[in-house]
């Protein structure tokens, strides 16, 4: 937390840079919010419905890429190697499903929200309510993580406490989400995308040039190092020498990799805050194109992240281990950044065999998930821990977040680049948080109040209700950001599983299967949701007694179970539908109608 204090002169300027960059970007967001405030519910829900495909594509990319994509994903991949591909394929492949199977039709349908579609297509307020509940659970789960991300970036780069970081983040989001609704969010997201992608690419390009001489990290990833060996071959070699599995080979079972990838893809396509972005473009043609642009802007980061992962992993291993002489390096010879990040608690070293060298091998260096530091320093000046794992030879703990956060320092880049990462992380977290908050507020003001409780409410009053529920949602999200429930990380996987198990089948069947009726859809969603919840509670939270990966059904982890729950939803929906009456003629006409692009007017309030 206090690593700045050790080297006041040099690092103060990183802090000043951070203040300047974060201050500038925040003022920009506020300026945009004032310029684009919403005047009607249509502005608030779908930004007036006239957003260009390119603008919407950029906004979708920012909406989609969260604090986790920006800060944690490259780090995760760095430690998972090939297995990290589940995130890369899962979080991009969903856009193909979205573009081909959902976005154009939902745009033609032309309402404001996902529960709107479910409610109208299945002519049932029960279906609408199930959809509202699912949308709110999914979005809250996600938004708490974003606020936490804001707090962490603040505390790491600006020496404020996590609590203050969350409060400042809340105020900013409050300002532009409550004032501008979807309109304000759309244009701030465009600005946030520019900030975050610049912040992500600059260090990546520098490091790629340093290590492989390639300007493009995507090329450097497959390029060769100074000594002529390919980067990935070198990395595989280092891994083998240190007793890890090869970087490019799999550790999870193939079945599980398949299931997780599918669950993430389908979950992505079913996430309400992504889907609603496609209600903001003028017509069906734009909705298709917009999905393509969105994936281009996402792919820039998603193809760079695995390259950063491999660069950082190689750098890190070569720092602690000399592969020529096959010896561990001494703690004393570690570069400055190593000790600085030890101060923040993201690195920890315990000299288990008292040789002053850093043994980094396969196995957990500590007991539990995080190192617990105690007062005092060891023989070599290292911070002491109370929870080293004496059963393994591994002496080094590395937090996955360090890969992106410390990358510029490891590569010795200028201070402004280091500060840029803070601004980028904040942009990623805030843009996603705003999109999610909008879904929550719309669910309450539109799907609950307007569609169920008080259909005669005036546009002005509905807008006020939307603002109040957005404000309320910001506060609740902030509370969870400051007091994160212990299960936050676990619950994010649940969010995808839930979206996969509920929305995706209901929407796809609603478009592609005209005979699908409300009985089938509601039963499918409920059974899908419940089986997902049951599996998570049983195998993730061990609610019904201790379980291990041996007990998983078909070897599928809770993270991957969304794909099975989705199949269950499909089967239940179709079977129940055969034994119940077909939907009324008007509904079948809706289905006919959404299949034809012509005449998609602006999103309608009905």
């Amino acid at each position: 937390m206090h690593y700045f204090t050790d080297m006041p002169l040099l690092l103060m300027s990183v802090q000043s840079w951070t203040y300047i960059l974060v201050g500038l970007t925040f003022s920009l967001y506020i300026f945009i919010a004032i310029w684009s405030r919403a005047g009607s519910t249509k502005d608030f829900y779908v930004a007036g419905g006239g957003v260009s495909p390119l603008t919407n594509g950029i906004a979708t990319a920012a909406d989609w890429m969260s604090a986790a994509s920006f800060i944690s994903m490259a780090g995760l991949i760095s430690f998972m190697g090939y297995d990290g591909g589940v995130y890369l394929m899962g979080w991009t492949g969903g856009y193909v499903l979205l573009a081909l199977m959902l976005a154009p039709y939902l745009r033609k349908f032309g309402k404001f929200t996902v529960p709107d579609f479910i409610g109208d297509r299945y002519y049932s307020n029960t279906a609408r309510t199930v959809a509202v509940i699912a949308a709110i659970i999914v979005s809250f789960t996600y938004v708490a993580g974003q606020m936490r991300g804001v707090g962490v970036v603040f505390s790491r780069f600006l020496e404020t406490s996590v609590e203050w970081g969350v409060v400042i983040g809340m105020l900013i989001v409050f300002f532009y989400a409550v004032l501008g609704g979807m309109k304000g969010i759309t244009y701030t997201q465009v600005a946030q995308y520019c900030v975050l992608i610049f912040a992500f690419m600059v260090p990546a390009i520098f490091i790629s040039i340093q290590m492989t001489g390639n300007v493009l990290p995507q090329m450097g990833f497959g390029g060769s190092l100074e000594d002529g060996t390919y980067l990935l071959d070198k990395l595989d070699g280092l891994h083998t020498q240190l007793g890890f599995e090869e970087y490019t080979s799999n550790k999870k079972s193939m079945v599980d990799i398949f299931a997780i990838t599918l669950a993430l893809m389908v979950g992505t396509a079913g996430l309400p805050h992504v889907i609603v972005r496609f209600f903001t473009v003028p017509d069906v043609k734009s909705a298709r194109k917009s999905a393509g642009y969105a994936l281009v802007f996402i792919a820039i980061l998603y193809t760079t992240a695995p390259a950063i992962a491999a660069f950082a992993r190689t750098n890190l291993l070569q720092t602690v281990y000399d592969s020529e002489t096959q010896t561990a390096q001494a703690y004393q010879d570690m570069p400055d950044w190593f000790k600085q990040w030890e101060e923040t608690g993201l690195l920890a070293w315990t000299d288990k065999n008292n040789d002053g060298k850093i043994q980094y091998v396969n196995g957990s260096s500590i007991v539990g998930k995080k190192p617990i530091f105690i007062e005092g320093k060891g023989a070599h000046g290292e911070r002491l821990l109370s929870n080293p794992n004496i059963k393994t030879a591994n002496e080094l703990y590395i937090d996955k977040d360090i890969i992106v956060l410390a990358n510029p320092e490891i590569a010795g880049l200028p201070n402004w680049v280091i500060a840029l990462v803070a601004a980028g992380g904040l942009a990623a977290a805030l843009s996603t948080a705003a999109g999610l908050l909008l879904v929550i507020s719309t669910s309450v003001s539109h799907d609950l109040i307007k569609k169920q409780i008080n259909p005669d409410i005036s546009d002005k009053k509905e807008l006020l209700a939307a603002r109040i529920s957005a404000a309320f949602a910001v506060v609740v999200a902030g509370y969870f950001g400051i007091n994160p429930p212990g299960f936050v990380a676990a619950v994010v996987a649940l969010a995808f599983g839930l979206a996969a198990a509920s929305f995706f089948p209901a929407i796809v069947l609603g478009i592609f299967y005209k005979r699908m009726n409300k009985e089938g859809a509601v039963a499918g969603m409920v059974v899908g949701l419940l089986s997902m919840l049951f599996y998570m509670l049983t195998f993730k939270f061990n609610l019904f007694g201790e379980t291990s990966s041996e007990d998983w059904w078909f070897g599928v982890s809770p993270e991957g179970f969304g794909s099975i729950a989705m199949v269950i939803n499909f089967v239940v929906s179709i079977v129940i539908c055969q034994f119940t009456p077909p939907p009324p003629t008007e509904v079948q006409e809706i289905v006919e109608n959404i299949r034809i692009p012509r005449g998609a007017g602006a999103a309608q309030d009905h």
Partner: protein
Amino acid sequence: MDEPIENSQQPNKGKKAPNLKEYWHENLKYLAVLLFIWFTVSFGAGILFVDSLNQFQLGGFKLGFWFAQQGSIYCFVILIFVYVILMNRLDKKYGVD
């Protein structure tokens, strides 16, 4: 996957009615082909056949690994734009744009 349902085909007002059924069938055909490729590059090349593809090199990459961490994503982008072009053409052909 649709079974025909009576009285559901509403003639379009105004312009001469395009053959919507055929339009929809061509659309489904495109979908099937594109989603097959989508499945092949990700679940196929990146997961199911990754070991056999890893026998081949693409620059410094093992081929299967490349598909899992790079290639599939490029293919996804191309797939969406191919779909956009195909559908724009189809919309014109049937006069539904």
